[in-house]
């Protein structure tokens, strides 16, 4: 057989036609990156909990307590589902999961307020989800603070002008600004990192499956016994290029289509995204090639790679704050492109950072690309030697 003019291109074509013919691989490199982001975005699409049912135990039964309850009911966060006569009844509703919180207004609520003393209302939250506690607490504390201001002004300070009243309510004004995720929603915070993880995991699975398949086909070798699979550099480049090119399209699909469809933050400029995706996908591809060389059966890689996704999400420092991750795990996370990629993507796409702002992450990604590329070369060098040995032996 004549040696082709562009062996890299040849290997690229070979690999591509191999992938297209294999439905097992197609699931992971086409279906997974196409469908999974949409599914995830749909799950979290509602962004936050609204109108969480709670019940009220109003022991005070006064005008003021009813006013308090009406205001709580009017918040977007919670809905007063029902009234209970006593705590036992309310607890029963909570056990049956009909309500997720109890607001208790004590008997002496109104009396104490008239006497100018502090009155305590109790909020009992179901901790099935931390979010329940957060929305209930926010709703009740906001109402309490507003009423406090009213009481302070109307009942304790008389004969004042409107301006003085305003000042008594708010001696200092404060603005709270939620940057980059103004609704404080779940989708805008969780989906971007998940997109990056999907890219890495799908790459690992796809590459792992195709290498496992090669090993099964060529009796333990990962390279086909044809002529143009002779040069390490050409093989590594050609193989890497296949997966890189497919996933580059997937990455753009995620950064543009999915982000746009679900109204996720989209502040990154095209060339900045490209400048990030190139090192990220290269690092992921060569990491996948390197780790896959340890997989001997094609199904084994599903077993090994799938459950890594969840620890990797946590180690990236997006869901669990990076500042609170123990040193050891921080260093452990450095060897995975996703740790850097998630942070860089979130900043470029979600916060409008420039490539310069993420230079640390990008540098790390290029370094990982280099390291994994060299390691992959070693793997293939070893494989070529093995295959030559076997041919001679045969």
């Amino acid at each position: 057989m004549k040696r082709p003019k562009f062996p890299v291109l040849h290997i690229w074509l070979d690999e591509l036609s191999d992938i297209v013919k294999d439905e097992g691989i197609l699931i992971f490199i086409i279906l997974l990156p196409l469908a999974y982001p949409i599914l995830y975005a749909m799950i979290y699409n509602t962004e936050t909990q609204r109108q969480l049912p709670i019940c009220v135990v109003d022991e005070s039964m006064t005008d003021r307590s009813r006013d308090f309850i009406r205001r709580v009911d009017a918040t977007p966060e919670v809905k007063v589902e029902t009234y209970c006569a006593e705590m036992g009844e309310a607890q029963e509703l909570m056990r049956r999961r009909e309500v997720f919180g109890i607001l208790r207004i004590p008997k002496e609520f109104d009396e104490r307020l008239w006497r100018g003393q502090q009155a305590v209302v109790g909020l009992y939250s179901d901790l099935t989800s931390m979010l329940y506690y957060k929305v209930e607490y926010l709703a009740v504390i906001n109402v309490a603070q507003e009423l406090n201001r009213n009481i302070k002004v109307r009942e304790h300070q008389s004969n004042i002008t409107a301006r003085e009243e305003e000042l008594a309510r708010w001696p200092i004004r404060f603005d709270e600004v939620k940057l980059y995720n103004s609704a404080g929603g779940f989708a805008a915070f969780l989906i971007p990192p998940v997109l990056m993880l999907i890219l890495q995991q799908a790459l690992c699975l796809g590459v792992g499956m195709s290498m496992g398949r090669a090993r099964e086909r060529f009796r333990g070798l990962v390279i086909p016994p044809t002529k143009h699979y002779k040069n390490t550099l050409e093989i590594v480049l050609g193989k890497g290029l296949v997966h890189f090119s497919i996933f580059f399209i997937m990455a753009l699909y995620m950064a543009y289509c999915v982000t746009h469809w679900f109204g996720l933050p989209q502040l990154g400029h095209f060339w900045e995204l490209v400048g990030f995706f190139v090192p990220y996908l290269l690092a992921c591809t060569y990491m996948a090639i390197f780790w896959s060389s340890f997989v001997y059966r094609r199904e084994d890689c599903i077993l090994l790679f799938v459950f890594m996704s969840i620890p990797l999400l946590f180690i990236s420092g997006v869901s669990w704050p990076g500042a609170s991750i123990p040193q050891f795990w921080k260093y452990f996370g450095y060897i995975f492109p996703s740790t850097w990629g998630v942070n860089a993507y979130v900043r470029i796409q979600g916060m409008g950072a420039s490539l310069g702002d993420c230079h640390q992450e990008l540098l790390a990604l290029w370094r990982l690309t280099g390291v994994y590329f060299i390691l992959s070369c070693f793997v293939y060098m070893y494989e070529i030697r093995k295959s030559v040995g076997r041919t001679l032996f045969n």
Partner: protein
Amino acid sequence: MRQAFLDIWTIIRRELNTFSRRPIFFVVMFVAPLGFLTFFTTLMEAGLPTKLPAALVDEDNTHVTRQLTRILGAMEETHFVMQSYSFTEARQAMQRGEIYAIFRIPKGTTEAALTQRQPVISFYTNDTYFIPASLLMKDMRKMSEMAGLAMTRATMRARGFRDDQIMGTLQPIVVESHPLGNSFLNYSVVLSNLLVPGLLMLVIMLTTSYALGMEWKRGTQKKLYEMGKGRIWVIVFGKLIPQTVVYTVMFWLIDIIFYSYLQFPCACGIPRMMLWGFLAVLASQGFGLLLFEAFPGQMRMAMSACSLLGVMQFSLAGFSFPVSAMDAPFQWLSNIFPLHHYFLIYVNQCLNGYPIYYAWSSVAALLCIFFLPQLFSFRLTDAFLHKEYRA
């Protein structure tokens, strides 16, 4: 009957023999569960993250604002790692990911406060990082509220009010919050308690279809069928009992470490949690088996389905984002996942200590998922007799 048990025993011995020859079983059965356990419990050792990095932009820089910032600096969650006079500088630090929040005191704050002209202070949190942003927001809000109240208190003291009178005026209604079951709001309790069993359940689903599919891959399915004399239940029991035993022991180990060693709250006692753990193992095996019956003999498709659905169950279980907040189709979909039901049982039993009666539907659902593959066992018979592994 006696013969059936003997056959099961033969298949179990054959299965154990396979385990001993394939290191991957050792990795997924022992290394992975222990790895998850170590990872999550050490990662979230802090429980509630504290001392989160934030920036302070004090454009005013007077003794009043410095006092304000000292109070803020003393709060639990906030740690000022950066002090700057320019907001742009702080924003860039936020974009570099060095800080999660900015507290800004504009020029003229003190002057406005002294002359009663209502100064405005502002704080910015980076909500792309959800947990730290929520925690810092809480601190800063409390602080701002307090700052306003402190100013009124000073005036009232000067007018000769007693402190209890002042509190009655400044903060007449106090909200006392009781997060039930996890009063320290320890995130590790919420997350480790479900992520570790959840990952174990994912591994169980995958190994179930892996162990079964391996027979077709090695072309030994006919032999196995003969060993079981064509009785599907004998074959399935023989194949899966070794895994059931190992994974149940791992589950129990996790329970003991969580509730005895790490002292996570457990209102129902460890033995009860062990029982639910055992049920969760069975249901996960049932789920894996069900998917294998959906793609009989095709190990790769079954495993792909297992992994796609298995990872999805972490989102649909509802412990991070509540199921009640999702759209209706996903609320229904969540019911097919064993992790969702294990989660509901965990909340009912371990976190709240309610009678199991209130979570009976979840117990029933887990049993259902365990028994459901029985209905489709004819597909396995068909696969044993007619299906071959396709490369």
